């Protein structure tokens, strides 16, 4: 399951809190980092590491939007649709992405490269419209910039 290195990280993280339950969010992040998403099997495993019942872990995983409850594409596109981005054309860019990728919001391309999600405010209102792809922010977007980024991701994936 977890790599040696990740098991060592779990032990380090547990030391930061008086109760092991507090390590749950950070350890779930490690799980998502290693497996790409959080399966029921992973929830059982993480629960076992921290001495927590499965139903508690399941409750937490399903409460927080960033834990992937099913596999996502290699590039997980999360487009901000909230007010400041909306005022600066986010709707059009989301439609543009749907058209370009041939999928609807919430879907993954058949080649497994891209997942498209609409998300709430990402704290980039001054550089709207914007999207987060995996861990990175891409801001002040236009349709040209979005196209260039998709090309760039496709090239990266071939390497």
């Amino acid at each position, binding site marked *: 399951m977890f790599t040696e290195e990740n098991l060592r990280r779990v032990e380090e993280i547990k030391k*930061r809190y008086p*109760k092991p339950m507090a390590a749950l969010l950070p350890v779930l992040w490690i799980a998502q980092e290693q497996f790409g998403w959080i399966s029921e099997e992973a929830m059982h495993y993480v629960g076992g590491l921290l001495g927590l019942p499965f139903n508690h872990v399941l409750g937490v995983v399903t409460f*927080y939007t960033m*834990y992937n409850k099913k596999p996502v594409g290699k590039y997980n596109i999360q487009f901000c649709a909230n007010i400041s981005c909306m005022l600066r054309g986010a709707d059009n860019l989301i439609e543009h992405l749907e058209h370009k990728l041939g999928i609807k919001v919430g879907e993954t391309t058949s080649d497994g490269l891209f997942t498209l999600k609409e998300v709430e405010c990402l704290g980039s*209102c001054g550089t*709207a419209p914007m999207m987060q792809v995996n*861990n990175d922010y891409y801001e002040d977007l236009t349709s040209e910039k979005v196209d260039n980024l998709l090309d760039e991701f496709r090239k990266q994936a071939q390497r």
Partner: protein
Amino acid sequence: MSDATKLYAQNGDPGFPRIVLPEIPNLAQMETYESNGGYAALKRALEMDPAAVTDVVKKSGLRGRGGAAFPTGLKWTFMPKGNEKPKYLAINADESEPGSFKDRQILEFNPHQLIEGILIASYAMGIKAAYIYIRGEYYKWYKILEKAVEEAYSRKYVGENIAGSNFSVDVYVHRGAGAYICGEESGLMESLEGKRGYPRVKPPFPAQNGLWGNPTTINNVETIANVPAIIWNGAEWFAKIGAEKHPGTLLYGVSGHVNRPGVFELPSGTLLTDLIYKYAGGVIGDKKIKMVIPGGSSMPPLRGDQLEGVKMDAESLKGVGSAIGTGGVIVMDEDTNLTKVLLRITKFYWDESCGQCTPCREGTGWMKKILQRMYDGGGKAEDLDLLVRVANNIEGNTICALGDAAAWPVKFTIQRFRKELEEELASQERSAAA
């Protein structure tokens, strides 16, 4: 060390200081921060009595920058004096209010001033461990913070016997995982404990019963980043900046239909029109303004004809029927579709409602349905009163403030733009009849 004045209040002009975002390149680097006098305020604080440190913060008039504008020093005095139980500090870096993007600037450009503030606050309250709770999406800034905290440990500013004193404290960065409600302080504590971020019923308040049942104080990033400057320059210096009852600078974030959106550090009480026209470059295409939300999406909006003379501080905005919130100003031009805006805002609160309290969980869904119907052209004249009734049934009837945050934009937009919305609904009814 003589440069510390420059660091903690760049430009030296008491009328126009840059306290938390000084224009010093590479300030996020430990070497730069130290060579500009950084951590000097910590050393000074460690020579003072802890209660005296709290006293300076209290006298400065510093108020919380996370939305409620509660007096910071007073909040610190709620913490018990003894050491029967371990005491904790939680820093709220869960910035998620639509229209707010200011704390991120501190995390990116001045993380050490935040850490220094955390250490001073910890000394003042006798904190055992401080946790910086940062929203999961802010991965880049999480990494920046982790590095800054590591550097501070290696320079002995954090950990055992900090800066050669008898005081020890640990600082940890804790990453959330996507939930607006974790910006509510009791939701934040639940989340930090490894649970769903359900807000707690208050009382008991965090200072009595916070993290793991122990005394806890929760402060916002910007609030704490002000503390080193206050300790260095004194309470009187700070109290003289900006608005009398809400002193200091504020990080104003301006977004929406403006030419130069961004974050501006300016004295509290800056004119809203100056923010929009002087700093944010005015409205795109020189259009008129229809609506401005002055403090993040949950604050009551103002009409374009209400902006003249409005000052951006807690008291002044209260006077015009709104609130300073997080200082996130969202500007909307004359062509903005109000129903679309309300639908968008309501969808957000519906999505982010944790589901504990029925009025919020159900009410946000009903408001969303009505607004969707209006947006799709099937609205009825009575929809406005129905929306207000639903909003009134949410407001004040929930454990946390998310309920009010969902109710206010709907209620106050209808109150302030009633005529326009009525005309829109009348035209929808006419075309439905035809």
